[in-house]
């Protein structure tokens, strides 16, 4: 029963990882770039929530009302002012510029908030649990996280498959030049995609801050987990990222149970195993999003 419990906890942890992975996957799907500052931006969102809690006294969940639009706006600005200027210059500039942002954000967080670890306290719900009978219980908060992740994925799926902006996303994802010929304004579209991505990342960062402590340097791990969830799930598959997140979450909790210190490592090793045995991921959808 203890193992069932471990796997269940891992599955719920996967919900959080799917949140991180979705934003990364969306950006790669639409414009074929990997945002190396993805993890650090999520930590920035968590610190923003800390500031909002400390100044306005809001419950961490309610900070999302401010933090999500702030991060989305930052994403739009980042794309329009910086990343769009790198379009058509090959793979190297976006990697190096987003890596530069990663280092800048980390060090700016260190300067502003010191190296102390922080946590967002939502007032009890993070420890409340729901009994499933048979000695099994799941935490309310991990359950809410998974539910939010599923809701966001459903919402994103609807946007991508039904709305005109989603059609434009799919079109640029398939063929940037032709999409542009058909009158799609790629630059603005990329701005919207980055705004959407960072909005989702803001939710992920705040939920991370409620679940566990974080420091200025927690970002890179978030990027790596998101990346691993995307690869395990299969590039370009939105639902794959949920499965990828769950596989990664289960691997980490099972590994940590076997030996403390092996949690994250086991996650990495499962990722490498998938890469070796099924490089296209579990639910590959070649070069498409949606």
């Amino acid at each position, binding site marked *: 029963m203890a193992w069932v419990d471990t796997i269940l906890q891992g599955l719920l942890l996967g919900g959080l990882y799917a949140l991180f992975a979705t934003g990364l996957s969306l950006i*790669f799907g639409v414009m*074929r*770039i*990997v945002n*190396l500052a993805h993890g650090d931006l999520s930590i920035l969102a968590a610190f923003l929530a800390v500031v909002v809690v400390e100044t306005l006294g809001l419950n961490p969940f309610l900070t999302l009302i401010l933090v999500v639009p702030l991060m989305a706006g930052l994403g739009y600005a980042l794309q329009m002012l*910086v990343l769009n*200027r*790198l379009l058509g*210059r090959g*793979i*190297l*500039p*976006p*990697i*190096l*510029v987003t*890596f*530069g*942002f990663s*280092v*800048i954000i980390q*060090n*700016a967080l*260190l*300067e502003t908030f010191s190296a102390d670890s922080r946590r967002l306290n939502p007032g009890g719900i993070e420890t409340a649990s729901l009994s499933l009978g048979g000695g099994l219980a799941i935490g309310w908060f991990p359950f809410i996280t998974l539910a939010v992740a599923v809701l966001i994925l459903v919402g994103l799926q609807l946007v991508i498959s039904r709305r005109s902006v989603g059609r434009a996303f799919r079109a640029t994802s398939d063929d940037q030049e032709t999409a542009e010929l058909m009158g799609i304004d790629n630059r603005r579209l990329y701005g919207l995609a980055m705004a959407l991505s960072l909005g989702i990342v803001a939710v992920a960062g705040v939920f991370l801050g409620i679940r566990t402590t974080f420091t200025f340097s927690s970002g*890179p*791990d978030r*990027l*790596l987990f998101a*990346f*691993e969830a995307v*690869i395990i799930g299969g590039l370009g598959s939105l639902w794959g990222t949920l499965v990828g997140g769950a596989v990664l979450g289960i691997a980490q909790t099972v590994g940590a149970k076997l*030996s403390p*210190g*092996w949690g*994250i*490592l086991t996650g*990495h*090793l499962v*990722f*490498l195993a998938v*890469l*070796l045995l099924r*490089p296209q991921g579990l639910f590959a959808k070649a070069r498409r999003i949606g």
Partner: protein
Amino acid sequence: MEPAALRIERTTRASRLGAVGAALVLIALVSLPAWGDPSTMRILVEFIALLVLAQMWNLLAGYAGLVSIGQQAYVGLGGYALIVLADDLGVNPFLSVPLAGLVAAAFALPTAALVFRFHGGYFAVGTWAIAEVYRLLIANTPALGRGSGRTLTAVFPLARETREVTTYFLALAIGVAALVGVYVFLRSRYGLGLMAIRDSEPGSETLGVDVFRTKLVVYVGVAFGTGVTGALIYLNLLRISPDAGFSINWTAYTIFIVVIGGLGSLEGPLIGAALFFLVREYLSDYGASYMILLGTLAVGVMLAYPQGLWGMVAERWDLRFFPVGRRVSLDPSPGPSPQRGEGEGA
């Protein structure tokens, strides 16, 4: 009309001047222990280490298009290999430094089998993830001191001065070997193939360049150079821990040096490393702000002048101290600005 005699130029006036200048600098550096003080030597060892890391990363990213964010894996592996070789296996610690490079190269082969499945941005994150795997594996190995790391004890019986001077000469040899090695490699036919791949992968393949093999050779060779440098760094520092040896900062420093100095040239990393050292010496008292400054500078350069500082200078005055390209000019009157040949430029 008689077919004009074409001449392939592979040297420039600056490169001939550069060779003289390099020889003078080398003489000054070799004689340094006679007139300099130990702290200058330590700083130079550090400078050479960062310069070699930068040259290696430049070869990898600037020429082979393999933008790795995981080169810290080979710094850490080189550092740990030094300690295992020297302390546990009793190999001479100075001899262990080049051997540590071989260890790093041996790890690079299976790593390449995994990361070469990725391209572009995902290659970058993939290499980063693998560096984390190495860090965590070592942090969980009791024989390697787990999270707290190990100290290099094999050098303790040596007199301090002997150790410092030997480390300094070793660093100098590594620095010269790396610079000459990269230069000779890029001027060879493999270098030409590499630059062809950088300019167009499908194009170079149709011309008979073995793209996969060339990239693999560069990846493993760069891992060797990075591993040697990692061993050198920890021969200088004497103490390694997983968090320090596998720190992403090694790659961050390297990337900032190369990007600011100029990607895809041999002169760029030299300028970048000098600038990096200046900024660090003057601003490290202000905590993390020097990394913010360097990061901003790197992003700004990438946006406004992707060729970097050296690219700016080279273009303005047509200067090339280490020309790796080939220029075609008409004999006997080479024009003042000959046509650009293959493999020239970034």
